[in-house]
């Protein structure tokens, strides 16, 4: 039963003519409103995840729920379809259960607020924002147990409920929810911040309606949607072929010892539409690495990659959705069945972007970057300090950005929009730890004409006993290089005990006890290289050796030989480069994936210090092909 919209004024908006200038002005105003949402949030949120790192996403939609500005596309349509209730003036809907909204949010840590905006008794828009909560209860601090086997272990699950109902605040509901979490102050502040951001945007929309008239505003948003449709139609016709292209990549493991999990996507154009078909993707996991992928979100990812190149000033909106069809097999890693665990979905989400890049880049070289959207690595550290105070850190790390047509991938930077690292002095001031080193790992970026960005080695020294959890990927299957570039180095985690004992840690670990004085090397992946490394200027390689970004040993991947006095040995370099050119295999396509899965398995223990993941086994009924 779909939601019932209750309006005092049921009159539909009239379609009126809009001149191009008014349209532009409205588009700009909406863009500004969205910036205001971000600014409001960052200033008032409290958890480091949202506040310092920016893990939150705003949206303004039209009265039908279609996104006009935002990032990840609208979930409002699917939500309204499944919401058994009314939408009224003064309501504010609050939810966190992915299964209630078709995966529009993809794990229960993301708290979403949705505000219908009414003017003169008529629904004119929706504003909405969701943000990652540091803790929502459940079996582990941080509430993202990688070894969870059902969503019931992942903390409080909020179905769509009204936090404000016709202007009345439901305080009891909030008490009930905050009672379930380990960090009620953060959650309460962050939720307040999300609501404040939505209210700001709602005010802006009403002001726009007052300034231009409700009909003009509604017609303008229709035109903006239509403009995206036309732009995308053109791109689809010129950039996507009718011939099928496929690409696949892997999630390394599931934290329970099994892996890798394959994600495969095939793309083609048919009757003017792009089909993105995930047939061939592995079935869902027992553990929490499943990523409940919403079809609309996938359309938005695709659209953003397309539009970015042609008119980056355009506002992404939902207008082009009809041009794309997404097919995801039920019971697969990307459409798991309830009550599959979902909290560890960040790895598959990240991998999707590598896959999208590889898929589009096969036919349109201007899109082709190397791989490096590994995941969003997490570290959790929690315990009770000597004063009896509970502490809990959830931190997002960064790896190397891939080599790009534009140039080298930046070292240790974020592929996620708006994210920043947390100042280490801040961490040391507010948590019982010291960051002994914070540097990038030389040679970890894949060699190429444009080098992949280096990953980061962040060394935590824990000053209080507690438990840690680690979520990362790209430790087994390396980030690939393109157009002659080499793959980047893989992620690694190493715990050094006070007595010097070294323990190689898995990259998906829960509830691991640490002692005061233990040091954790949290090492992330390097980006893949772009273009032929033998074409890179030896002087640049030498400079980067001086900068500590590349080593003399690593220079050999570029065919550059460093003499004993530290200069480039030009003759030896020439000889080595000639030999390397002669010995390398003839053109094997644009991708360099490194060794195949079986070889990786065989060498895993030796190369990574960890046993190879075991091939997952599935019950056959889990894997049904999509219709």
């Amino acid at each position, binding site marked *: 039963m779909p939601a019932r919209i209750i309006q005092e004024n049921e009159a539909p908006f009239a379609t009126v003519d809009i001149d*191009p*200038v008014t349209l532009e*002005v409205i588009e700009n105003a909406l863009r500004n409103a969205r910036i205001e949402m971000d600014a409001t949030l960052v200033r008032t949120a409290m958890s480091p995840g949202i506040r310092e790192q920016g893990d939150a996403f705003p949206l303004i939609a039209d009265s039908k729920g279609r996104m006009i500005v935002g990032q990840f596309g609208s979930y409002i349509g699917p939500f309204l379809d499944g919401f058994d209730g009314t939408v009224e003036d003064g309501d504010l809907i609050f939810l966190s259960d992915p299964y209630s909204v078709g995966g529009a949010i993809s794990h229960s840590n993301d708290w979403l607020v949705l505000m219908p905006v009414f003017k003169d008794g008529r629904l004119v828009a929706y504003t909405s924002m969701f943000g990652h909560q540091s803790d929502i209860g459940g079996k582990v601090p941080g509430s993202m147990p990688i070894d969870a086997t059902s969503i019931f272990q992942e903390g409080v699950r909020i179905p769509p409920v009204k936090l404000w109902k016709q202007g009345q605040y439901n305080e009891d509901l909030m008490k009930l929810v905050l009672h379930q979490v380990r960090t009620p102050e953060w959650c309460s502040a962050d939720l307040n911040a999300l609501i404040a951001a939505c209210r700001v945007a709602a005010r802006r929309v009403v002001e726009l309606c007052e300034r231009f008239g409700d009909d003009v505003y509604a017609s303008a948003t229709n035109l903006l949607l239509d403009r995206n449709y036309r732009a995308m139609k053109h791109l689809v016709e010129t950039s996507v072929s009718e011939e099928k292209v496929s690409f696949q990549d892997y999630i390394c493991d599931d934290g329970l010892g099994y892996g890798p999990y394959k994600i495969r996507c095939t793309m083609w154009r048919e009757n003017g539409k792009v089909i993105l078909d995930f047939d061939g993707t592995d079935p869902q996991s027992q553990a929490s690495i499943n990523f409940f992928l919403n079809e609309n979100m996938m359309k938005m990812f695709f659209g953003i990659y397309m539009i970015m190149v042609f008119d980056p000033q355009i506002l992404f909106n939902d207008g082009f959705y009809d041009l794309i069809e997404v097919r995801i097999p039920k019971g697969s890693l990307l459409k798991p069945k309830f009550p599959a665990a979902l909290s560890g979905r960040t790895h598959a989400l990240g991998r999707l972007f590598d896959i999208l890049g590889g898929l589009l880049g096969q036919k349109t070289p201007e899109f082709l970057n190397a791989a490096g959207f590994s995941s969003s690595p997490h570290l959790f550290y929690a315990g009770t300090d000597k004063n009896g105070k509970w502490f809990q850190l959830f931190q997002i790390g960064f790896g190397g950005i891939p080599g790009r047509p*534009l140039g080298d991938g930046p070292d240790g930077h974020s592929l996620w929009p708006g994210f920043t690292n947390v*100042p280490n*002095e801040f961490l040391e001031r507010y948590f019982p730890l010291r960051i002994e080193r914070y540097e990038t790992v030389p040679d970890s970026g894949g060699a190429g004409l444009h080098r992949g960005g280096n990953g980061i080695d962040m060394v935590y020294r824990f000053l209080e006993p507690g438990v840690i959890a680690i979520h990362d990927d790209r430790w087994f299957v390396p980030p690939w290089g393109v157009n002659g570039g080499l793959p980047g180095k893989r992620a690694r985690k190493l715990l050094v005990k006070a007595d010097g004992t070294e323990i190689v840690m898995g990259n998906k670990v829960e509830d691991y006890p640490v002692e005061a004085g233990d040091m954790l090397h949290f090492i992330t992946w390097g980006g893949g290289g772009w273009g032929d490394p033998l074409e890179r200027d030896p002087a640049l390689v030498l400079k980067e050796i001086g900068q500590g970004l590349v080593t003399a040993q690593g220079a050999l991947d570029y065919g550059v030989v460093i003499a004993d006095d530290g200069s480039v040995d030009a003759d030896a370099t020439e000889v080595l480069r000639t030999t390397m050119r002669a010995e390398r295999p003839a053109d094997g396509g644009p991708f360099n994936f490194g060794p195949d899965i079986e070889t990786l398995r065989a060498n895993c223990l030796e190369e990574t210090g960890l046993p190879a993941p075991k091939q997952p086994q599935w019950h056959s009924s889990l894997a049904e092909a999509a219709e």
Partner: protein
Amino acid sequence: MTYRLGVDVGGTFTDLLLFDQESGAFWRHKTPSTPHDSSEGILNGLEAICEKAGITPADIEFFLHGTTVATNAVLEGKGSRVGLIVSEGYRQVMQIARSFVPGGLAGWIVWPKPEPLAALEDTVEIDGRMDANGNEVRPIDDAQIRKALETLRDAGVEALTVSLMNGYLNGAHETRVGELAAEIMPDVPISLSHEVLPEMQEYERTLTTVANAAVRPVVGSYVRALRSQLRAGGMAGSLSLLRSDGGLMSSEKSEEHPVSLLMSGPAGGVTGALWVAKNAGLKNILTLDVGGTSTDVALIENLEARRVRTTEVGHLSVRASALDVKTVGAGGGSIAYVPELTGALRVGPQSAGAVPGPVAYGKGGTEATVTDANVVLGYLPESLLGGSFKLDREGAKAAVQKIADALGIGLMEAARGIIDIVNENMFGALRMISVQQGYDPRHFALMGFGGAGPLHVNAVARLMGSWPAVSPVSPGVLCALGDATTQMRTETARSFSKRFDETDEASVIAILEEMAAETRAELEAEGISPSDINTSFELDVRYEGQAFEVPLSIDPETLRKDGLAAVRARFDEEHERLFTFNMDSAHELVNLRAVALGPALELGRFNLPEGNGDPSEAKIRDHELWADGKMAPAVIYDRSKLRAGDVIPGPAIVIEMDSTTLIEADCVGTVDAVGNILINLA
């Protein structure tokens, strides 16, 4: 007789404004800037303006200067080669920065990463570590430090920066490195992070210290050269520079702390607006400083400009107090275009700059700009006052016609569209500093200045509901006016980072008093009499764990009398205004600042002769311009002939040497006693 001279050096012109302190009479002059050595243009202007006023440079008691020399050194990468000493494990602090990539999802594909301000090869780690309470965890090693310093010296660094982890809490290690450096590289200027910016956050503190070191030699040699040339020219008065926060500092002090000058240019406009507002009897002002490539906006409430703790220069975000000036890439030179794919009309941020400039300037520009649209619509008359420069209206029309064709609309509609969009962009920037900060723009007047501000101020005021729209007297040299009319200011800041329940009034006041003594001593050293110095305190407060601090000013007596409880109440009130809610969380005192201000100026006021309300004496000719969808008759006036009390019905254009004011059709402009034009709805 004493005179004050304000000098603002811009990209194209050097503006000068000379004030007679007693009568309030003033003279202004514009002379071409000399980018190879700006002091040349300054001296040319000095000579000319003294001649106009019939004085000699020796009569000038105060030479007050806003400069972009520090800003340009950063933006153009012309700062010095800086060596950087960091803690073990932190060599890449500038390389990793905050890991932030601008531009949204997939933005990384097209982002060119800027090079760090201190090169990685000139960054060296040393052993030793302080913890987050300022206690030593591991000692430093003199022998290793000497080696590091020798390496940097031999590499040829021109300035040295030391920034160690948690140095803001305990600067002992940094100080020791500084001592050794003074010995090993005696000629190299040294900046220690705990002295330049004793605040938490290693990247921001390091960046600020490095930025300071990088611009020090450039600013130093500029200031010294200027000083000696002025002295040689007979000017014996004091030379002060305008800081980013709108205060003045002595030229000697600016050599040590040039990072405080990074927004000196825009600050001049805001302080100028403050002066004008005071004389016009306005208390709340939004400023709109429209230049060729960008527009700066700021908010003044109750004759105080808002300050922020961060100065944004290019991609860098430096921790130094600045007036809260937001910049958008929308100015007279902003280029209009229609991308084929979307068929949308876009204006900026690309700009035709000074070269080739707008099509109408006839210097080779081919793409339609905002200025061209203003010319097409008749807002900028073809011949400006003086007649030396004629605008190419036909060229402008042809360029705008291309935009009109791409959109399938008429020429005038396209031109008006370009103006509407650029106004909307300015409107967006103004909203960020007003509505978004909890201010209602309807309680503010809007003041437009810079070359093109008075052209747009009427339309933008209408969007904001901010009346009157003000075209100040001498809008083209308002920055120089600001330089001439502001007061000495200095401040010092410290990280505090304690919850209210972890401290008390007594200890907070003790630290503030100590800081206040420092700042007073600085001003006294500048020759200001102790009785003329005013001290105030600022406390940055937030809910524990929040990212955003609210700065609260408080005077020492109130703090003693009402205590921290009053501070808490003030914070809650301000938080409510900004964000619409309060919380039960603990309050945290983040930073403490002491500010010392020199004496406020008591300048005379120069009044225009009183008119009879009828501006026709000043009429130059009849004119036509685009208003409300059609060409309408209008009048062009000469600003220098307007009298106090003149009432100008719109549509009208008021022209002067370097600026043009547009009064829209249903509005009316009134000339006030000192010559400002106040535009209101008719």
